[in-house]
């Protein structure tokens, strides 16, 4: 079976998908494929998005769809045999402040019981890793990041809560994420960042993009409440 599948998802969009287990290696492969295809076919492509094991390309014209599907299949298959390195500029690490105080972490004590881990252990396990942003979606600016420590993994809530506060840092399964706006959500909320992840008035409206690397560091309740800088600088 071929390792690359290319298929249309719309009359003007197609997805290149790698039939490989998800993880850092697969993401880096699809990221390299996305960069090469985007450069080579920049006249045909209007925008593209990455997600775990796939890259989706939006085309200017529906007439190009069949041609692009064929060309992307050939190019991606040959690239897989000899992957080019991803450009360094996309490899930045962003350190995000998080307050894990109970006021801002409504689910911390419940999952501490569920996981049989102390709250301090959960905080330390969550903030000692570097995470990869696999994709942005769900709502504007929501990053799907992974993988969290196996000791922290638990299924999402059976019943989502109707209002999660913006900035809430949450976990579900192998993933961690941050809610950029107030929205219903089913992930377990273990902290909150004072940073704005989504701001429609900025030229670059979202703090994070797929491919970014993220680390969390703990701040106190006092630091959170006196935080002046809504963005990373």
């Amino acid at each position, binding site marked *: 079976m071929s390792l690359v599948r290319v298929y249309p998802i719309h009359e003007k969009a197609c997805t290149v998908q790698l039939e490989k287990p*998800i993880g850092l290696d697969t993401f880096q492969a699809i990221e390299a494929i996305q960069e090469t295809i985007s450069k080579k076919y920049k006249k045909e492509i209007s925008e593209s998005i990455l997600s775990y094991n796939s890259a*989706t390309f939006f085309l200017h014209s529906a007439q190009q769809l069949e041609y692009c599907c064929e060309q992307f299949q050939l190019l991606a298959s040959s690239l897989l045999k000899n992957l080019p390195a991803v450009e360094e500029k996309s490899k930045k690490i962003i350190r995000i402040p998080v307050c894990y105080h109970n006021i801002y972490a409504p689910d911390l004590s419940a999952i501490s019981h569920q996981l049989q881990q102390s709250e301090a252990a959960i905080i330390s396990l969550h903030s000692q890793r570097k995470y990869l942003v696999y994709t942005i979606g769900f709502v504007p600016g929501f990053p799907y990041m992974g993988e969290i420590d196996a000791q922290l993994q638990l299924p999402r809530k059976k019943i989502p809560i109707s209002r999660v506060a913006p900035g809430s840092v949450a976990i579900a399964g192998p993933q961690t994420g941050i809610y950029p706006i107030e929205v219903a959500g089913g992930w377990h909320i273990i902290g909150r960042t004072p940073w704005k992840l989504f701001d429609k008035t900025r030229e670059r409206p979202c703090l994070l993009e797929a491919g970014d690397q993220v680390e969390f560091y703990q701040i106190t309740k006092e630091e959170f409440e006196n935080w002046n800088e809504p963005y990373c600088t």
Partner: protein
Amino acid sequence: MSLIVHKPGLQSTIQDAGREGFRKYGIPAAGPMDLAAAQLAQLLCNNHHDQSLIELTLHGAIFEFEKSAVIALTGGGAIALLNDAPLPYNKSVVVKAGSILKFQASLYGCRTYLAVQGGFAIPQEMGSTATYLPGKLGGIHGRALQAGDQLRFNREQPNERSLPEVEVEWFNPALSSNQVCIRFTEGPEWSWFSKEEQNLFQQTKWTIHPQSNRMAYQLEGDALNMTQKKELVSTAVMPGLIQVTPAGIPFILMSDAQTIGGYPRIARIDSTDRNILAQCRPGYLLNFQKL
């Protein structure tokens, strides 16, 4: 001010051609559900296709024109009354200052487009005025219209010259029947469904569930039970894809659909038939025919 909203009806939003270029940040294009009808409204007003217009859902809206204007109504889902007299759709109309435009219940259709010559003066957010309710973006403060809103026109005086003097004969099957056929092509995960399930998908008369909106239409019918319980890795989705949840319920993604999805996609509906879907209201019966 130029147009006063006395009642917004079930849901009225500002739309334009849509917000392109922000999908990688999780922001879909939004824009009109029935793109063809919206474009006709723009044509009838001599507008650029990217002007701001109003998308009304079903009936209940009441607007007052504080200034004279050239307008056009397209799509369907309501009976329009201008100062209590029926106002035809699909035709340019000059509306005098002080006029009241009301939308009453009708039998068929779901979305009316109200374009005004020159468009409504709405500030752009991220390159577009299209309202994306889940992200609180575009339109008026990212929300649907509400009573008391006042919308300015870009054009001070209506220009009655050079207007098309036609009443367009418009066809959309969902504007004259509550049972429509929607054509589809196989979705990326079509082969994840057994022959029986594929047949069931095509033979069922699906009912559009009341919990359907600009993000997605939920369908009621026999559950499609996948024999293969495979997990799909979250990947990009677009309007027109039909996702099937683990409970076997199909959801047709529409204009405000999120950009990433994790459910298998049994089918794909292209633009012509998305316009038909846009005019289907909850309770309509759909059957799917493979292209």
